[in-house]
């Protein structure tokens, strides 16, 4: 490649990277093979992703299980200006996102708009305005009375925030945001169960043992290089120890067809929590969550 070609290619690449906006439709790259290809392949042979269920799915499950809406358990919107460190901003972007999902799933438009504003403020502080900007807020405002559209826009926005962080090698910030969202989902579940204690709600809390394992593995990836992530990992491991005796179904799945729907079943009973387990998890998650929001 001639020097001028390198200069032009570099300028074009840097411009694209700096813009960070919607990229053109070209979605594959063809790279010239280099001597290090074999090494690179060996390094990337196994990519392991950890997919944590979204706070919106958790909120929907709580609603189905009979939970009621309580705005008093959510993070105060006034706290949003208190978060100055990037790690706290990321955790609380996840927390406000979960609050936004909870308010929206339960169709509380007024609070949805307040939490949208908080989440957008934190996204701006984290320099993720490319994915969560005034245009998104405008779309949410416009669709405030259309629950399905509102939920879709929220999901899409958080998906773009997560993607934007990952494509800019800010995976540690993404991990903190996901951890904050999961923690808030568990906190909300425990708080609503205090008022409306049913086997279904206990089951949904008990089942959090499964995504917690994935979340720990995700956060562990970044903990050696980031003190804030290491601190969150410690919190997650503390919670994991409280879930240690919670029974959750594993393996021996069967696949059947019921009314045209493929069903993956198992013989194991549904997950459940004892009073003591519920109490210890509720207390621990409240303490950890308080340390994130205050």
């Amino acid at each position, binding site marked *: 490649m001639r020097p001028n070609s390198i200069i032009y290619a570099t300028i074009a690449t840097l411009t694209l990277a700096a813009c960070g906006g919607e990229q053109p439709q070209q*979605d594959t790259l063809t790279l010239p093979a280099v001597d290090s290809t074999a090494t690179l392949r060996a390094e990337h042979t196994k990519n392991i992703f950890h997919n944590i269920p979204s706070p919106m799915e958790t909120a929907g499950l709580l609603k189905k299980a009979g939970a009621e809406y309580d705005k008093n358990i959510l993070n105060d919107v006034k706290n949003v200006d208190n978060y100055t460190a990037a790690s706290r901003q990321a955790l609380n972007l996840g927390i406000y996102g979960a609050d936004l999902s909870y308010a929206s799933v339960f169709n509380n438009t007024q609070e949805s708009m307040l939490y949208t504003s908080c989440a957008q403020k934190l996204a701006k502080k984290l320099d993720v305005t490319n994915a969560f900007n005034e245009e998104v807020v405008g779309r949410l405002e416009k669709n405030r009375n259309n629950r399905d559209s509102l939920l879709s826009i929220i999901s899409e926005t958080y998906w773009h925030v997560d993607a934007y962080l990952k494509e800019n090698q800010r995976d540690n910030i993404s991990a903190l945001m996901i951890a904050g969202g999961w923690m808030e989902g568990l906190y909300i579940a425990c708080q609503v169960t205090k008022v409306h204690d049913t086997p279904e709600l206990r089951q949904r809390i008990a089942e959090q043992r499964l995504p917690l394992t994935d979340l720990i593995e995700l956060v562990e990836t970044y903990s050696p290089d980031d003190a804030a992530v290491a601190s969150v990992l410690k919190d997650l491991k503390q919670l994991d120890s409280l879930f240690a005796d919670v029974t959750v179904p594993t393996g021996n799945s069967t696949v059947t067809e019921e009314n045209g729907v493929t069903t993956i079943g198992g013989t194991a009973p549904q997950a459940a929590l004892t009073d003591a387990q519920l109490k210890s998890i509720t207390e621990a998650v409240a303490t950890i969550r308080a340390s994130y929001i205050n």
Partner: protein
Amino acid sequence: MKHITTILAVLFLLALPAVSNAQCRSFAKNKCMPSMAPYKFNETFNAAQLAPGEEAQVDLTFYSGQEYRLMVCAHPILGTVNWQLQDASGKSLFESNADAPKDHFDFKVATTQKLTVHFAVPADKAGNNMLKVGCVGILVGYKE
């Protein structure tokens, strides 16, 4: 001039991942997301640029009573990506391969459980000297 060229070449290599990942997001948004309707999709971005011969896995939790759509969406340049859904004991519950390719699987689970998706990009049999890289996205959607 030589130093400038070297610096720019280094910057080019440093910026390349961000550009290629942004293209992956664009691919997932434009080519995969529309096929998720009417399912609400999970907010976690699971997509990567993979080359022929590479494989990956995603661990997922599925809740009882929910209906799900699981989609493995790969750029055609990679050919047919083989993928398999397994339970915690490694038992195969669904498989898509070159003989019977499918880009998605709709199902529900009777008991909440963790399942794993394994996927593999077929090796490049043509043996040309260009390393092809394409986006593979994994999307999970659920119905309320």
